[in-house]
């Protein structure tokens, strides 16, 4: 692959927090994402919507480097994420480089994935102590502050098996934030929840948007919520961004037929 088109570092003045540059992902013959280009600027909240199988999760997993990519480069904060500079060109990143780079990205999963053998507090402290090398006291202070923010401080010594889905997801958000990521990823964080507890999780995310200057990328099926809090909404279809724009425009006045069909289909379902 010719890497000369990709700079070793993005130039000053053209440095979005995240840049997907011609990113391609395929599983065998199935092309899941085709030449994706997407910029997310610092502090921006971008929602990703689209039909099942359109590649939404894949976008997040590539950014978390849980999936390798087959073409293109992803940049985070101006520096290449999937590749590293070597002898004046970009080569696929090794494990060590990846580990350093992905420390600036946090992710929350649909099924929470809390560590069952640790309490809520221990879950939050694990990364800061084991990865960032913070002292126990510092990590505890940081974690307790975050657990307070998500409203889980009174349950800090409970194991995940004693928490409801909504509570587990709030702890998972605190755990990701404890690493002080620059970019937060949310993959359908409310899909596995009972309807009555969805609000407690969306309220936390809402709080992050209004009170913190985090860059966020969120996959969701909750159109109302996406419209409410996003700076921009991307509609994915067949591994491509079919349409994107400010929420009021995309939801209020969609331009493309596929977007219209999708939006009316989900409206009917509600």
């Amino acid at each position, binding site marked *: 692959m010719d890497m000369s088109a990709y700079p070793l570092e993005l130039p000053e003045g053209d440095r979005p927090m995240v840049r997907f540059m011609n990113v391609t992902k395929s599983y065998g013959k199935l092309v899941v994402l085709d030449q994706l280009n997407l910029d997310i600027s610092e502090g921006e909240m971008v929602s990703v919507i689209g039909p099942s199988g359109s590649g939404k999760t894949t976008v997040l997993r590539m950014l978390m480097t*849980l999936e390798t990519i087959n073409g293109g480069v992803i940049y985070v904060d101006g520096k290449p994420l999937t590749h590293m500079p070597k002898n004046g060109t970009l080569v696929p990143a090794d*494990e060590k480089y990846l580990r350093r780079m992905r*420390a600036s990205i946090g*992710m929350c999963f649909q099924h929470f994935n809390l560590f069952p053998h640790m309490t809520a507090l221990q879950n939050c402290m694990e990364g800061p102590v084991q*990865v960032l090398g913070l002292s126990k006291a510092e990590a505890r202070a940081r974690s307790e502050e975050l657990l307070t923010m998500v409203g889980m401080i009174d349950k800090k010594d409970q194991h*995940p*098996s004693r928490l409801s889905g909504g509570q587990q997801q709030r702890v998972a958000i605190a*755990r990701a934030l404890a690493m002080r990521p620059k970019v937060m990823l949310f993959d359908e964080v409310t899909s596995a929840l009972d309807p009555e507890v969805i609000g407690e999780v969306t309220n936390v995310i809402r709080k992050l948007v209004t009170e913190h200057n985090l860059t966020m990328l969120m996959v969701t099926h909750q159109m109302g919520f996406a419209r409410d809090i996003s700076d921009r909404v991307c509609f994915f279809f067949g591994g491509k961004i079919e349409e994107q724009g400010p929420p009021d425009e995309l939801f209020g006045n969609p331009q493309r037929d596929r977007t219209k069909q999708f939006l009316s289909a989900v409206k009917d379902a509600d």
Partner: protein
Amino acid sequence: MSIWEYMQIYGARLASGTAITCAQFVLAALIAIVVALLAGLGKLSQNWLIRGTSVVYIEIFRGTSLLVQLYWIFFVLPLFGITLPKFVAGFVSVGLNVGSYGAELVRGAIQSVPKGQWEAAYALSMSPAKRMRRIILPQAIGIMLPPWGNLLIELLKGTALVSLISVADLMFQAKQINASTFLSAQSFGIALVIYYILARFFITPFMRRMERAMARRLGKA
């Protein structure tokens, strides 16, 4: 001769045999656990040399008999310049044999930890070694404790074979007493009961305690 008289005469020998059996059990169990962890992790390694070594060890020790391994280690290994005292050859053979079965338990347990746990640890930027040690292994141990309980009973039974290279364990003493007295029902019967007591009232309750402690760590108890 009543059982009571029998025990007065031979009880001490059976007790010393039981002590040797317990020592063989503990030492063999330690070897089995260490080897099982190494080979179980090794079978999942990215490195083909480590993986290959683990697979060869597991298949050879699971594919042949403990008795064959014991004789081989005791009688053939000295030809390669490795001479082990019979006591050591005994627990090493039993440990290596059971370790090969344990390795499969370790591998299976690690693979049954949900994939999401790997991903969550990965997303926290944990190194592969930390992911394994702090997140995956503690959960895998909880999964594999119950089958290890059965395996340790197999290990206890396996130690009886060391009597065949003249380690003076419980089995050996029972055989010796039988040979000089022909009181077979008493000699072998009492030995059977002692093995049963060790398995049923020591190993099994100990493993249950471990399982309960593990469940507490997972916040399930």
